[in-house]
């Protein structure tokens, strides 16, 4: 009971403090800025974004064509007699005469032609939409149906094509049972007036703004599955960038406040009084966090309501919020100056945003997209259901990593850590060393490595996301080295801190036992998490690079043990330089082992 009361008290203080510092001077300015923001947004929506104005230079001798182009500010158009145009035709991307387009043989020229043909098809649409006989203007309608195929991640990634190439002219024969499908109706079932309004609606969507944004289902036809051939297009990747801006940026903003609040406690040892009270550190941390957490959830809920999206979106966002707050806590506890705070948080937010954003580009296209919770949001907005397994799959790492980081924060929330002015790397190592118990160093090494597994997986998945798009051999090799590097560095962290803490106690015997504990902990965590969440990825070639230790238990244990021991031994012998050399050696051995396993696996 007392614990909960402490948390609530601290939350109340935090809210009062936040409004206190923000109060007098900030709130009027913030209100003014908010009003300005609304005014400016309205103005911008009206006038459009002018970034790409005049990037193409077009010349024509036809006034009607020039009129057609004038609606698109990307073209700066010259109307001149054809003789004048020919005189300096090199300065134009497109020359239009006699209803024919001549394209300059440059990237810019080609891109201009693409843009022009898009504009022209919009122009055609606007003309055809006015026709009395709509089915003369749009004689072909396509009812687009998608079929879900059971083979996914593994199939496309191991190089298997969408189908076998048959040399014969005989149609393929399915192996499964054929279920009778009713013949689709020949009539369209919708009145032509209905279709006309929908067509007009979808053509107006291409305004100045939507060219840059294509906000949510913007590219979706409001006609449902009925489309004209013109409307058939593969899903565009940039919808999700908007989601990042809409949902993640406010979260990032709010977590900055938490970060700052933690940092403020450290300036001039202000937090000393609070620490000297019997309130537990975890209560302080949670209490300070609660208002921000609530604020973030409220902001997200408000955004969801504003977007008229289902509130189910909040489910995948909660672990993201938790993860953001956990990193905010650690960054606030570790940085020595505002400069450092800014840069680490910018760095972190870039990495986190990419992790969230990049896979979700492939929503609807590839299963890898599911490693980002944003994909679940996109799916929800699109009205596609996702399963509890999908949820677990894309959010478990966020939950686990968030909790581990919080744990490290809580055990280090003490005077000697908060108010020291150590360098960043030293600080990380002392944070870890605090997390290691003095009485049972090996047990805590085991636990530490097991707990670090989510972080490792996150880093490795991040590498997967990063290298996934490179050509096949390069992506595999980079992934191989990257994954080994991440694992070896993580395993070495605990040993390094332990050795720093008590160099004299760290005998050869201790090194061996510590290495064994590390290897065991690592293996245990890896196994546990793999079976719970990542079976889909771990079955593909990429997966086997990342998580080779699925086969027997002895081989991977020996590998982990051997590699850690190498690192431990070289630290003991050579200090910092020895550490670097040890890591290089361990990564090399790890890579060789992985290559052996993969090729053994493939053949």
């Amino acid at each position: 009971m007392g614990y909960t009361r402490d948390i609530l008290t601290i939350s109340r203080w935090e809210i009062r403090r936040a409004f206190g510092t923000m109060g007098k001077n900030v709130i009027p300015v913030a209100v003014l800025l908010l009003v300005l923001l609304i005014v400016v947004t309205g103005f911008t929506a009206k006038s459009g974004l002018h970034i790409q104005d005049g990037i193409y230079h077009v010349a024509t001798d036809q006034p009607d064509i020039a009129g057609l182009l004038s609606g698109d500010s990307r073209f700066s158009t010259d109307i001149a007699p054809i003789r004048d145009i020919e005189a300096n035709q090199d300065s134009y991307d497109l020359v239009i005469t006699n209803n024919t387009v001549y394209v300059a043989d440059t990237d810019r020229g080609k891109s201009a032609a693409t843009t022009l043909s898009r504009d022209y098809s919009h122009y055609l649409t606007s003309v055809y939409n006015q026709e009395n006989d709509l089915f003369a203007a749009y004689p072909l309608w396509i009812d687009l149906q998608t079929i879900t195929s059971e083979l996914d991640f593994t199939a496309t990634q191991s190089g298997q094509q969408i189908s076998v190439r048959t040399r014969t002219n005989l149609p393929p024969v399915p192996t499964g049972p054929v279920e009778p499908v009713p013949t689709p109706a020949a009539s369209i079932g919708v009145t032509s007036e209905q279709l006309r309004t929908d067509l007009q609606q979808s053509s107006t969507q291409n305004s100045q703004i939507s060219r840059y944004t294509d906000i949510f289902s913007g590219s979706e036809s409001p006609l449902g599955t009925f489309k004209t051939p013109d409307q058939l297009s593969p899903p565009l990747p940039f919808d999700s960038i908007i989601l990042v801006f809409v949902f993640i940026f406010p979260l990032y903003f709010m977590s900055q406040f938490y970060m700052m609040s933690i940092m403020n406690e450290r300036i001039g040892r202000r937090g000393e009084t609070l620490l000297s009270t019997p309130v537990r550190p975890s209560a302080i941390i949670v209490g300070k966090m609660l208002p921000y957490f609530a604020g973030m959830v409220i902001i997200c809920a408000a955004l969801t309501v504003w977007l008229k999206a289902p509130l189910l979106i909040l489910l995948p966002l909660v672990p993201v919020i938790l993860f953001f707050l956990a990193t905010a806590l650690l960054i606030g506890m570790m940085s020595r100056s505002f400069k450092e705070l800014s840069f680490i948080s910018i760095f972190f937010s870039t990495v986190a945003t990419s992790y969230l954003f990049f896979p979700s580009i492939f929503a609807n296209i590839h299963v890898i997209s599911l490693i980002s919770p944003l994909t679940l949001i996109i799916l929800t907005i699109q009205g596609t259901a996702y399963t509890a397994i999908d949820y677990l799959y894309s959010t478990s790492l966020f939950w686990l990593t968030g909790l581990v980081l919080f744990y490290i924060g809580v055990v280090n929330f003490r005077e000697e850590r908060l108010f020291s002015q150590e360098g960043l790397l030293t600080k990380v190592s002392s944070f870890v060393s605090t997390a290691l118990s003095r009485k049972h160093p090996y047990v805590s090494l085991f636990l530490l490595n097991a707990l670090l597994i989510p972080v490792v997986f996150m880093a490795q998945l991040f590498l997967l996301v990063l290298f996934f798009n490179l050509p096949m051999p390069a992506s595999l090799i980079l992934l191989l080295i990257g994954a080994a590097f991440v694992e070896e560095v993580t395993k070495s962290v605990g040993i390094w801190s332990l050795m720093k803490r008590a160099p004299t106690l760290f005998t050869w015997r201790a090194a061996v036992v510590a290495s064994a504990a590390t290897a065991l902990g690592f293996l245990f965590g890896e196994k546990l998490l793999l079976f719970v969440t990542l079976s889909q990825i771990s079955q593909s070639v990429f997966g086997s690079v990342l998580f080779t230790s699925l086969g027997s238990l002895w081989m991977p244990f020996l590998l982990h043990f051997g590699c850690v021991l190498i690192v431990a031994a070289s630290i003991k012998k050579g200090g910092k330089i020895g550490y670097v050399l040890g890591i290089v050696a361990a990564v090399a051995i790890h890579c060789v082992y992985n290559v052996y396993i993969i090729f053994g696996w493939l053949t």
Partner: protein
Amino acid sequence: MLAILLQLFIALFSSFLMVGLTSMYDPAALSQYSHYQYPIGYCGADSDLKNLLQANGGLRVYDMDLSTALEALKERKLSAVIYVPDTKPDAVDPVKITLYTIQNDLQAAVVDVKLKDVLTRYETDLRQVRTARLNEIPVPLDIPSTPGASSFYEFVYGLLIPLLVLMPAIISSALVIDLITEEYQNNTLETLLSTPIGLHEILWGKVAAALVLVPIQAGAWLILLMANGISIAGAVPILMQVTAVAAFLILLGTITALYYRERTAAQFVYSTAIVVVLLFALAIPGNPLNVIARLAVGAAGPEQWLVLGLVSAAVLLLALVADRFAAKVMRLSQSPK
């Protein structure tokens, strides 16, 4: 130092993403699959569409029964199935075909692109048959197809490059807030002021430090982009534009920091203000970002100097304000409380 390192990392990293993205969505990259003949199931009545499909070299058309074809599609033995009803080309009603494709598949997207070509051609043919029923014939325009055109051209030059080079400017203006508020919050300013250095020197020193970083970082960005094979026409004028914009933003940050002297408040107000300023600027034709985009593609005229001049004038004005404000702050802090 740390700042530049992190910037460099982010730069490297983003260019990685870029390359990945472009190769993923570049039609040229996708066309490596194009020498495959994609099997298509054709069901229902015979039509001109079937001839068009068969004429396409990238597709192999099989006459099939709908139920069998759909099962084959599910097993990925076909890449798409088309059902065509028995509607005459000159009928009053439209021809409504049904297209079945596979979800969650990148190659299905390739097939979609191929099918779209064929279907658009079929639509044009059908429209030709029904042309007597139209009341207005649109202006004809013959646009040659441009193989190898990157759909990323506009994204790269018209969005990515302007935003990338703007990033150092924004980061530097946030940095100047950190530098100034830090002196206040750690109470180090008084120590500094007790030396012969005045507040003006301290202030302009910090502004200069933040400003110098901008062209270095933006230049690094441009070099990285060029290393990635993205040619940039006017790199030097771009850096001049960015530096001018950065000076404006940094001075804005300086004034905010001097006013609030506390990081949370200053950063909050400043970042909201910057959104307002940027949104407003973007809505004006010929804004610096537009000039940067045009410089990058090599389509900027002499008007770039006018924009540069205007921004510089605004910078001078703001510098004057900042200087006055600093003097006022100075007097206030010296007067007895």
